[in-house]
């Protein structure tokens, strides 16, 4: 199973790319997807408590179970306006 993962703001710079495809196993959650990203880019791990996630463009809790083809974004604190 595969998710499209998007990074924004400071996270995009740390991840080194605005998006990537990440493989995951059935039953995995958004939190586990973040851990998979952080295992490739360890600097990401420090941001776990200061980002929120969205799944298919809706804010979603870390415990959300993923489906193949989901679009998951990791969003730092927003600063529009």
């Amino acid at each position: 199973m595969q998710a499209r993962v998007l990074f924004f703001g400071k996270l995009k710079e740390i991840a080194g790319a605005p998006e990537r495809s990440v493989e995951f196993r059935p039953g995995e959650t958004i939190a586990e997807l973040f851990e998979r990203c952080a295992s490739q880019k360890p600097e990401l791990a420090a941001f776990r408590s200061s980002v929120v996630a969205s799944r298919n463009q809706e804010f979603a809790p870390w415990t959300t179970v993923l489906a193949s083809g989901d679009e998951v974004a990791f969003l730092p604190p927003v600063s529009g306006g």
Partner: protein
Amino acid sequence: MSPVTPTHNDDLVLLGREPISADALVRHVRQSHDGAVVTFDGCVRNHSRGRATLYLEYESYESMAFEKMKEIAASLHTLFAIDSVAIAHRLGRLEIGETSVFIAVSAPHRKAAFEACRHAIDTLKKTVPIWKKEFFADGAIWADGELPPVPAATPAAKPAS
């Protein structure tokens, strides 16, 4: 600016790189049955925490940001006795003094228009996925922001498969 999507009644929501036309947004919401139009003009300030700002760059999760802006416009109609709403946010590089966000709310009476406009900008700054980078003479930083509220986990949050 594009995309341009009518939402509730004659609401207008814009997210794009072109300069915002405040006049056009005010004209859009101002109808003969309105007694008030309240606007918020968010503009690029020349300083941040004691440092001189050179310019700003805004980026967004565009498709989600646009939907969240439409949700804000729609929610104003359920919360306040207003007529119509126009909300525009600009992306890309903005110079000092330029408008980054503009909100116009029309209503038969001023109280609802004031309250709705205030609610709209406060909610936008908390929930719309847009990020601002501040550029100074000696470097750049991502502006401090607010972490959007996330709905609590529910058993229904499982995939259909």
